[in-house]
């Protein structure tokens, strides 16, 4: 069986549309994972035990089980207790929270690593602990972990393929759809791989820009 790309153009619009969905879901989930990560990190470090411990358990489940399973539970499970999320939203929440937990680990370490002198200097000026955290410590911690968080975001892009299980017609699902029609798996997986790679290059470009900008702020 040789490769035959002649069937590809007919499905190119489907694939590209899938690519757009992938971008959309990645961007939304990336934002959620970023801010969620900061939130979880601050809670894990500073919240009282009544909030911290349940949160810890919640993080544990997200760290300890495959994303596939989490997506399934969020989409098919929550509706049984009356929370009816559209597939796209469920996908964003699943992906976003999954990576938020990873980001939180990074940010926690970074918060602890921010020079003690920074908190002292801020407190000395009269800032409260919360103000110092918000304006001085957390921004620096986040800045310090932008590269690994960027890595997570790129992993998130790849994992967005799993959202196909709950029926969001993102890139992988679109490729599978085309394969289902034509039975040309290699051609379409290759095409999908190329589209993923292009999105990935775009993300890497943006990350490099951000990293260059924050290099000064060290």
């Amino acid at each position, binding site marked *: 069986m040789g490769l035959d790309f002649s069937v590809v153009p007919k499905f190119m619009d489907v694939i590209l549309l899938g690519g757009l969905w992938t971008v959309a879901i990645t961007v939304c989930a990336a934002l959620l994972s970023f801010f969620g990560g900061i939130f979880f990190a601050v809670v894990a470090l500073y919240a009282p035990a009544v909030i911290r411990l349940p949160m810890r358990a919640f993080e544990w489940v997200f760290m300890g089980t495959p994303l596939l399973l989490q997506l399934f539970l969020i989409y098919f499970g929550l509706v049984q207790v009356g929370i009816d999320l559209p597939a796209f939203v469920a996908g964003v929440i699943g992906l976003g929270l999954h990576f938020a937990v990873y980001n939180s680990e990074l940010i926690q370490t970074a918060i602890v690593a921010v020079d003690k*002198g*920074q908190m*002292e200097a801020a407190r*000395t*000026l*009269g*800032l409260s602990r919360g103000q110092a955290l918000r304006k001085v410590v957390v921004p620096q911690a986040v800045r310090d972990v932008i590269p690994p968080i960027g890595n997570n975001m790129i992993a998130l892009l790849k994992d967005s393929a799993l959202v196909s299980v709950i029926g969001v017609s993102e890139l992988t699902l679109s490729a599978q759809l085309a394969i289902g029609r034509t039975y040309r798996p290699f051609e379409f997986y290759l095409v999908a791989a190329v589209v993923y790679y292009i999105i990935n290059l775009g993300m890497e470009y943006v990350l490099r820009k951000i990293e260059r900008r924050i290099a000064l*702020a060290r």
Partner: protein
Amino acid sequence: MNDKTPFLDIRHARKSYGSLEVIKDISLTVDRGEIVAIIGPSGSGKSTFLRAINDLDPLTGGEVWLEGTQVNKKLPHRQYEKHINQVRQDIGMVFQHFNLFPHLSVRGNITLAPKMLKGLSDADANKLAEEQLDRVGMLDRIDFMPSQLSGGQKQRVAIARALAMKPKVMLFDEATSALDPELVEEVNQVMKKLASEHMTMIIVTHEMGFAESVCDRVLFMDQGVVVEEGPPSVIFRNPESERTRNFLRKHLEGVRS
């Protein structure tokens, strides 16, 4: 405040870390506009004492009063937080390692606290930043990031940042000892300028020459006590105690070989 109340009054300060007593009953009053130097060997408790003044390292005993207000008041947590954040605005502090906020520009470093705490508008905060930077000769660097500054410049910005809160007293903890020798002078000049403007200052330093030329009074601390105290001319030229003499001799050897 009546005239007999001292400006800054530290009474029977004590501080222990576990069983280690680091500050052993030190009392000190400082008048408005007075400049006090604290010298002493490493580990003698200078930093701890200085940091106790704004309750950054709370004392285990004793009281700190500034203009009739007790700084280290015992209060329920929330009230204490409110109180101490208020009081600290009156006490500027400059650290050995500058502790500029690296993610903010020079302007951002200076305007952050005034905007958050005094509710200054952007325009007012900018004006304030410009004034204070001008005072330390750093106005032309207002839009630089800290990473783009030399050590001496960083320290001058740190001083401007503290001054922007219009503090009543400034504390300096070895403000020049992390600097290359060539950069020390520029920071010393700024401190001299503040002295000439009658800013009340407490300065922990290793530079005897600077202490001698700027300060009204010198405290020599060792092992948590003030061993000797007096005008610089006396402490540096004719110290009474053996310990002071020893320290000064060793110190001069260290610096000048």
